[in-house]
């Protein structure tokens, strides 16, 4: 990775690295230690503030709100991928009447803050008489419009980054433009862009937390609610800590699953190799 920059370290460089390593470890441990110590000093780790997390009802509720977060994530993720592919195809179309609106659509929805988009859905539309906009709908539609536009750009860039020859080779054997796009370009673009797509999925997961600001009852909303529990010492900071751990955990699991898929895809090469070994 950093082979771009560095020579293989010699003995002196190795000594210097040991020194740098030590300093880094001391600084990092120092910072984390200080934060934990101060939280401890200011009573954030008292039994009273953490007692609430021991109640089965609270634990169940955490499972429930993880569920609502995942529900919003799953629907938004699928919706964004679908919208992204449709918009990307639209933008790549030769017909201007199709590609231009798709272009403006993606530009527009990437320019509006997601929170404002959710507010327009949730507060704005009902104020002019649109009925049935639940927080779930506002969160999911907002996420889809925004991330679909972002993913459209990702797919388009992925297709554009493929060697020109791939498209030409497809055309040269008589495939139509649409066939080339579907069977040759898109599968390769998805593969090439998989890390970016995964990063965007993690963004969707994180952005479900914006739902808490428009009263969607997800993890952060519930964690904040627990802060109102005065009889348990108003555990605001502990609530945030628990929420942070859950979010980081969910995002890491998501990245892990995605990496596994990526590995599976690339290990197709190995499977193929093995098969070829038997055949040849």
């Amino acid at each position, binding site marked *: 990775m950093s082979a771009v920059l560095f020579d293989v370290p010699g003995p002196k460089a190795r000594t210097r690295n040991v020194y740098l*390593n030590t300093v880094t470890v001391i600084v990092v441990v120092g910072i984390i230690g200080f934060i934990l110590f*101060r939280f401890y000093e200011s009573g954030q780790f008292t039994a009273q503030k953490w007692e609430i997390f021991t109640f089965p009802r609270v634990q169940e509720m955490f499972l429930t709100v993880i569920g609502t977060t995942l529900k919003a994530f799953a629907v938004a993720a699928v919706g964004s991928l679908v919208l992204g592919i449709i918009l990307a195809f639209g933008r790549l179309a030769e017909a201007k009447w199709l590609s231009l609106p798709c272009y403006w659509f993606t530009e527009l929805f990437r320019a509006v*803050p997601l*929170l404002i988009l959710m507010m327009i859905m949730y507060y704005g539309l009902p104020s002019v008489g649109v009925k049935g906009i639940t927080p779930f709908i506002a969160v999911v539609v907002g996420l889809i419009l925004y991330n679909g536009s972002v993913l459209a750009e990702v797919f388009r860039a992925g297709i554009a980054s493929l060697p020109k020859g791939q498209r030409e080779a497809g055309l040269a054997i008589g495939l139509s433009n649409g066939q080339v796009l579907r069977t040759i370009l898109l599968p390769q673009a998805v593969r090439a862009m998989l890390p970016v797509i995964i990063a965007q999925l993690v963004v969707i997961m994180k952005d479900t937390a914006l739902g808490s600001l428009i009263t969607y009852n997800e993890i952060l909303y519930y964690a904040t609610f627990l802060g109102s529990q005065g009889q348990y010492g108003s555990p605001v900071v502990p609530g945030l800590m628990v929420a942070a751990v859950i979010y980081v955990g969910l995002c890491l699991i998501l990245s892990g699953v995605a990496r596994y898929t990526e590995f599976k895809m690339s290990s197709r090469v190995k499977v193929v190799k093995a098969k070829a070994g038997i055949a040849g």
Partner: protein
Amino acid sequence: MNVLLDNSQLFIDGFKNTGILFIFSAFFSLILGTIVAGMRVSPAPAMRAAGTFYVNSVRNTPLTLILAFFALGYPKLGLPEISFMNAAIVGLSLYTATYVSEAIRSGINTVSVGQSEAARAIGLPFMQTLTLIVLPQAFRSVVPPLFSVFIALLKNTTVAAGFSVLEAGSIRATLSDLGEPLLPGLLWVALIFVLLVLGILSPLQRYLEKKWKVAR
């Protein structure tokens, strides 16, 4: 139009604070992000690990939560008191710095290995290889993604609305209390963001991108 004109002071104050949040956060995240990027390409494994840990943990945490920590957790650290505006700036900077560092790091990686090998082959030591050859070229491929990061930052400032910074994102709450029509109000907010992004930042990004593409 009425909502905008009747509440012009509200919109002006809101977007002024959005601007302050944006400019300071952009500045600090650029500095911090560069340092973290440096750590992540450093030859010392612990520095790389620390940089990676920071980026991975912060990038996987919702911004809303990070800002909440700064508004509510920071006062418990016993450090000098800071205003909520500054707390929001710190939170936004820490969050955005992870994206800045990734943009810079991937920019460094776009410079072909051959460039630094050629530099080393004529006898340039590490620092000069970095400063004379790699960074100047990396910079060109860093600027476009960096702009995207800053566009995201501009939009992310709205999240600070929940944390005692009266910026564009909090205009809704005030309008709502004033009994003003909400949809037009929100659409105005959206429109102003669209103008800021599509009217200023994106063209600037395209301009720089083009300028440096030619120079290459």
